[in-house]
């Protein structure tokens, strides 16, 4: 019998609803797990121990009084620390927001709370969600539970590590260029970025507003479907949220993929996958074929340009979004500034870390007079090409498959001084953000070092049901949940 902290969200909600476990028991089990493993992985920036136990006790009282709890009854959840929870910190992994207390709660988070979830804590991230390794946090790096010398990926690295190490069954992240899917891949968990507009961004600190989406990290595709169904839907506080009706994502999720047309992007091979990754990728495609899917080669010639397009457009938006951090209304303020200009310059220079500074400079450069057409204009043009190529591909197939990341986890420190190599980790994930498509990362196997690899499935806009069904069929076939994944992690964590 699995311990409470090892259960999926679906299992926990079932047990709490039926009265087989109390919400307090579950919260205590997960808090104990955090105390045991987090000293080794540093996934959390804040643990809400007392508040979480109070909130769980309140759920138990409501159930005892005869109230029917929601579909996430008693499910502990961790939030990436760029998501607002009223009365608590939202550090964004940055010194510039030290001391800031959020006066409101993000819509996606509130919907989980309304469904019975208990917010256990805030997780580590690359500063302002800018990074692919979680090493750009101003506070500390996070370690990969599979190998403590490796990065967990990023920027939602704390959320991915927290789920992989079984401290929570569900964590939220944000995905601007792969920041949910890439750490999910490196930590051997499921990560999903919904269609742009599917989930309200209200209460998510903005990075690239036309690219950002809130997504989930879980240990099962069914939990991903469950969480999405609760978070999705229009929100008057985010005008980019879509009015499209919300599907029941669990309905039909076990139906299999016989006859599903899956596009295999031929340009993936040009990315020079290592032999072990290539072998695993071929085996992944074989599994999809054996499940009855029809594999069809598709071409996305602008795939190679996607990173360049992304690092222009995302940074242009970031440079504008981060202009608000100036030491006047909230956050870090430099001491002894002589005038307002000094206050801006000193507060920002002291508060932001090197990666954020690099991106602000790139963004302001690309938007500056004389360079705008050469960078922003060209990037927009190449994006239109990418958009047309995906539209053409989706006329021939139902789903597109790529590896989520070109490599398994890399060593802590390995890419810290080489931002361009770090950026290239996102080659397969950024197109979904640029084009606004839904994408899911699902564990697919191991590399030669026995570290997780991952399959990414991309769908048509609002085609979440189809990619969830395909991901569920694949997950069942590789039997990953039975593999020594998160169960193996604690032992290697060393009984902390």
């Amino acid at each position: 019998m699995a311990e409470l902290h090892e259960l999926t969200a679906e299992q926990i909600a079932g047990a709490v609803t039926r009265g087989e476990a109390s919400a307090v028991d579950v919260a205590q089990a997960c808090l104990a797990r955090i105390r045991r493993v987090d000293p080794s992985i540093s996934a959390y920036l804040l643990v809400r121990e007392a508040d979480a136990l109070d909130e769980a006790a309140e759920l138990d009282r409501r159930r005892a009084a005869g109230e029917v709890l929601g579909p996430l009854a008693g499910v502990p959840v961790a939030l990436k620390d760029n998501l607002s929870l009223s009365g608590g910190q939202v550090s964004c992994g940055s010194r510039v927001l030290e001391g800031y207390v959020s006066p409101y709660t993000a819509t996606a988070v509130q919907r989980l709370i309304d469904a019975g979830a208990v917010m256990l804590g805030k997780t580590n991230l690359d500063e302002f969600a800018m990074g692919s390794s979680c090493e750009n946090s101003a506070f500390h790096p996070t370690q990969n539970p599979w190998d403590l010398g490796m990065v967990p990926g990023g920027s939602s690295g704390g959320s991915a590590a927290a789920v992989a190490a079984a401290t929570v069954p569900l964590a939220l992240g944000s995905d601007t260029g792969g920041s949910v899917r890439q750490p999910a891949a490196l930590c051997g968990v499921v990560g999903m970025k919904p269609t742009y507009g599917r989930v309200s961004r209200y209460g998510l600190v903005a990075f690239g507003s036309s690219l950002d989406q809130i997504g989930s990290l879980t240990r099962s595709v069914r939990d991903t479907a469950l969480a999405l169904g609760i978070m999705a839907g229009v929100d008057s506080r985010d005008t980019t949220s879509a009015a499209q009706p919300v599907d029941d994502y669990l309905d039909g999720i076990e139906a299999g993929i016989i006859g599903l047309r899956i596009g295999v992007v031929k340009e993936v091979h040009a990315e020079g996958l290592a032999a072990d990754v290539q072998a695993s990728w071929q085996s992944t495609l074989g599994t999809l074929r054996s499940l009855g899917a029809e594999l069809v080669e598709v071409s996305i010639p602008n795939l190679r340009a996607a990173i360049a397009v992304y690092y222009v457009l995302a940074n242009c938006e970031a440079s504008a979004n981060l202009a608000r951090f100036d030491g006047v209304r909230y956050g870090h303020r430099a001491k002894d500034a002589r005038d307002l200009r000094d206050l801006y310059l000193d507060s920002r220079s002291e508060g932001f870390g090197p990666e954020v500074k690099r991106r602000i400079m790139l963004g302001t450069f690309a938007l500056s007079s004389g360079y705008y057409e050469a960078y922003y204009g060209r990037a927009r043009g190449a994006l239109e090409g990418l958009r047309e190529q995906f539209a053409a591909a989706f006329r021939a197939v139902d789903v597109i498959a790529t590896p989520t990341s070109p490599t398994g986890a890399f060593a802590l420190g390995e890419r810290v001084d080489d931002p361009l190599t770090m950026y290239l980790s996102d080659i397969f994930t950024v197109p979904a953000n640029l084009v606004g498509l839904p994408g899911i990362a699902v564990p697919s196997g191991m590399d030669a070092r026995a570290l997780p690899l991952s399959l990414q499935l991309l769908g048509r806009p609002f085609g979440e049901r189809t990619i969830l069904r395909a991901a569920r069929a694949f997950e069942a076939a590789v039997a990953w949940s039975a593999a020594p994944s998160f169960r193996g992690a604690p032992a290697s964590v060393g009984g902390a």
Partner: protein
Amino acid sequence: MARLRLSPEEERQFVLQLGRIVAYIDQLKDYPTTAVAGLGQGSPEAEDRVAPCLPRAFFLANAPATFDEFLLVPQVKGGDDG
């Protein structure tokens, strides 16, 4: 524009790193540009309606320095050119 002040060490490092990144981005020259239809994934205009906003006390509680109901900042212009 970026409103950042860099140390000489940061300047040396960033020139090197940003040079490589911009050189990589320059590959966009090799891609045919497609006519851009509009300014991206536009959103519908929000309905214009009156709603309560954040109470002033909540807003001011996060400010590094305040005076009565106002945000406090250093002098806006320097001494000589003020």
